[in-house]
Every structure is written in structure tokens, then in C-alpha cells.
């Protein structure tokens, strides 16, 4: 297939992936909005007033960027892991496997679908945040870049999870036991300045800390880590995960008998 045909195939897959989560919007778009609203009411409104300022800003403003990015992360991941695994499970992944679509187009198509949901939910959650805070975004370009890259990274991670998953349990293990703890420990609700040693230094090994702080820097201009380092990490993770996906599909692992 030539480039134009590959692009058509990729676009078709993106369309299919987007329609999938849009069709089930009460399961995909609404719950994260409700959860975020609850976070704002409980942590921001009830507890936040007693906390006062963190990092020089009101607590509500401090947690807003992390909550948005948390929604981006979990929804990007959830979309691809669920969609790709059910495609395998119901065998309609075969529609893609028999087609001349390249492995790269296939991966980018699923990734773009994950990003579409990640960004859609991210924006929806940001709108909720706007109801509770009066934030003005510090650096729009950086905010968008961090959001997109984070979404891409976790979409690819979801894809890897789905490729190796054999049962429905396998697709919930990583989100429950890895992703959620790392997000909570990644400084959504606190600055690592508040952590005692050795927890503060250990936190530096948590990649989510960098993403959340880079995004917080973009929105409110406050970060625990250098933003350049965070961006470097995001780009590196993106390329490593993309290469891993291409390599694995080429080998046919978990797909071709």
C-alpha cells in the first residue's frame, strides 16, 4: 500500500476507535467527570480550606492539573487496553490482520483512539475544574504538549498490556496495582516537598511524578522537578513503547498462531 492508502487505513481505525467510546459515552465520558467533581468537592472544598496553600497556590488550584492529567492517563490506557483486548477476544482483530495495513499504522490507529478518549475526557474534566477554580493557564503550548505526549505514552502502554493479556483479569491488574498507586504517589494531591526521606527520593523514580509536575508547571507555573527532564522522559518513553509495540506485532506474539 502506498502512503495515502496507509493514511486512509489509519484514519479508518481512528474513526472506528473513536466511535467505539463515543457510542458508550455513559461508561467512558461521564464517570471521570463525576469522579473529578467529587475530588474537588471533598479534597478541594472540604479538606482544602484547612490545608491552605501548597506550592504558593490555593490547594484547589494545586490539585486541578493533576486531576486532569490523571483522567488523561487512566482513560487513554483504559481505552486501548479494553478495545484491543476485546478485538482479540471477539477476534475482530482479524479484520486488521488480514488487511495490508502496516503494523505501524495499526499501532498508531489504536494509539490515536486512546488519545482521542484521553483528550476528550481531559477536556471534560478541565471544564469541571473550571467550575471550581479560576485558573488561567500559564503556558498553553506546554500544557497541550504534555497532555498529548502523556496520552500517547499511556495509550501505547495499554496496547502492550492488551497484547500480552490472556484473560479479562489481565487487563485490570496493571491499572489497579500499578497505574493507580503510581498516580496517587506521583504528587496529584501533594508536593513531594512534604514527604519525609527516603520517600521523597524514592518518588523521583516514579515517572508519573514528572508528567504531573510538568503539567502543573504548564498550568499554574509550579513544579517539583525540572520540566526539561520531564519532557525528555516523555519523549523517551514514547519512542521506547512505540518500538516495543512494532517489534512485538512483527513477531506476531499473542496474535498470530
Amino acid at each position: 500500500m502506498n502512503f495515502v492508502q496507509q493514511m486512509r487505513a489509519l484514519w479508518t481505525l481512528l474513526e472506528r476507535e473513536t466511535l467505539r467510546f463515543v457510542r458508550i459515552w455513559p461508561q467512558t465520558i461521564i464517570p471521570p467527570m463525576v469522579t473529578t467533581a467529587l475530588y474537588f468537592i471533598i479534597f478541594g472544598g472540604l479538606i482544602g480550606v484547612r490545608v491552605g496553600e501548597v506550592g504558593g497556590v490555593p490547594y484547589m488550584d494545586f490539585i486541578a492539573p493533576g486531576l486532569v492529567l490523571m483522567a488523561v492517563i487512566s482513560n487513554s490506557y483504559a481505552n486501548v487496553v479494553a478495545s484491543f483486548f476485546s478485538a482479540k477476544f471477539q477476534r475482530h482483530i482479524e479484520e486488521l490482520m488480514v488487511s495490508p495495513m502496516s503494523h505501524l499504522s495499526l499501532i498508531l490507529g489504536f494509539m490515536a483512539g486512546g488519545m482521542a478518549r484521553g483528550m476528550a475526557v481531559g477536556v471534560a474534566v478541565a471544564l469541571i475544574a473550571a467550575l471550581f477554580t479560576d485558573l488561567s493557564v500559564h503556558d498553553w503550548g506546554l500544557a497541550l504538549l504534555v497532555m498529548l505526549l502523556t496520552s500517547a505514552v499511556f495509550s501505547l502502554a495499554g496496547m502492550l498490556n492488551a497484547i500480552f493479556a490472556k484473560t479479562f483479569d489481565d487487563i485490570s491488574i496493571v491499572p489497579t496495582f500499578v497505574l493507580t498507586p503510581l498516580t496517587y504517589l506521583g504528587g496529584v494531591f501533594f508536593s513531594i516537598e512534604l514527604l519525609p526521606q527516603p520517600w521523597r527520593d524514592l518518588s523521583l523514580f516514579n515517572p508519573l511524578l514528572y508528567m504531573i509536575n510538568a503539567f502543573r508547571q504548564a498550568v499554574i507555573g509550579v513544579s517539583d522537578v525540572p520540566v526539561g527532564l520531564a519532557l525528555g522522559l516523555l519523549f523517551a518513553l514514547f519512542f521506547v513503547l512505540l518500538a516495543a509495540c512494532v517489534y512485538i506485532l512483527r513477531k506476531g506474539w499473542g496474535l498470530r498462531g
Partner: protein
Amino acid sequence: MHALEINGLTKTYGSGTKALDGVDLTVAAGDFFALLGPNGAGKTTVISTLASLVTATAGEVRVFGHDLLRERAKVKGMVGLVPQEFNFNGFVPVQEIVRQQAGFYGVARREASERTAYLLEQLGLADKATAQARQLSGGMKRRLMIARALAHRPSLLVLDEPTAGVDVELRHGMWEFLTRLNREEGVTILLTTHYLEEAEALCRHVAIIQRGKIVVSAPMRELLEQLPEESFVLDLVEPIAHAPTIPGVRLSLLNPGVLELEVRRGQPLDQVFAALHAAGVRVMSLRNKSNRLEALFIKLTGHGVEDKA
């Protein structure tokens, strides 16, 4: 040029099952080809290999002269697959499934939509275009998979038991559609089926696979001519205790009122009836025991086809 050339194809699954043991198969361009074989013989494995769903352990596959391993994308573009098992997302509307499949082959959006409308019309699914695929009946689902397989105008259409579970009327409609596709659009068709009368009615060439090996591959006519004997079932007017003995034919009593008769091809039946009459056996009616291909199949494979429908 051959539409399909398979040489020494071997497949051992991860479980250790040797599904294919050196399959050699040639399908001429424009042919209507039946691949027959008992359950578990390896038909689906052959088809899945040439559709890139399964990786062969060894061997060579060429589609219209293009090597599968070296030019996989090219080969994929020429093959349309109707798999044995339903493999679409049941929650998606019928027309979307077909249109998106065209998209995955790089067909432009407008052309894909037009092609989809045409195929759904041709396959009698036009009024189901916006229904979710899971709401279709079994026969409709089969036809949906045929429409999907044709979305990108393949030159070689491969159908794995396309008529399993399809009622008689629909089956004949499908035969007509496939025959037209083969004659008018020149699409080469390879199908597997457990209905031997279907293969006999449709196909010009037959291959039989057994335990991962092709045991025969020949033009249908040639095969049927080779068949040395024909069997008939005779319903008798009155029951008899023993089958009479008549020189030159084999008679056996299936039950007291039913006699089985085996004759050599070309042997006139009137002599047999005269001899039966002389022996005091009166025949009420007569029918072919099985269709001819079935007899051949049983002879070659040593057992009948389990009809899974």
C-alpha cells in the same frame, strides 16, 4: 498464471499438533475450487495461512505469482477471506463493518461507501445496513462476512464453510451469487464445505485434504468419471429374509424391506431388475444411495464427512 500455489506447506501449532504436513496445492486463475476434508484435516489452517492469520512452520505460498513472505501486503490486497467462525464486532452497525474493512485496505471513503451499499444490496442485507451485526440471523451473518471479504475487490476469494448453518433457499442464493462473481467478475474462488453436493454443484476442481496432506487434486469431471461403482437403495414391495445372489452385482439387505445395490458404472440396470424379478423380489422404488462425490470422498478418506450444520 496460477491464482494460488502452495508448496510443502507445514504447520505445527504451539500445542504440538501437526496440522499441515507438506501441503501442495495449485489453483488456476479463474477457477472455482473446492477444498474438502474431514473435521480437523487442516482446511482452516491452510486458509488461515494464506490469509496471514497463521504463520506457517515451513513451505511457500504464492498468490498470483507473489510470494506471501516477501510481498505480504501485496498478497493481502488480493485475497478476500470469509472465515469459518464469526469474527466481527457484534455491536457495530452492518454497513460500518463493511465500509471500515474497505478502509483498512486503503479504499477512499466515498468509494468504500458506494461499494458497501452495492454489496449489501447484492447480498440481500440492504435493509439491515444500520442494524447492529449481532442482531442478524446466522445466515445473514455469513452473508455479512462475504460482503466484508469483497469490500476491497479481491481477485482470490477464500471461503471457509460459507454455507454452514444456512437454509436451503439462502444457500442456493449464495451459490448463484458466487457463480456470478466467478463468471462475470473473474474472481477465483476457493471454498471448503462439508456439503458435498454443494462442491459438486459449484466447483470445477476438487482437492481433498486428510491429516494435513492433499490426497487428491483433480478436475471435478475427471474425478467423478473415475468412480468405478454406483450404489442404489431399493425399497421393496414385500420384505425378504436374505438378499438374492445375482452375478456381477453386489446386493446387501439393509433391513428386510430395503436392499442396497452396487453396480459397475455403465452396467445396464434392466438386467439387474430382470434377475431380481426372477428371484421373486419386487421393487417399489429406487434412489441413489449418496451423491457421487460423497462416495468418492468416502473411498479416498476412508470415512464420511461429519456434517456439522
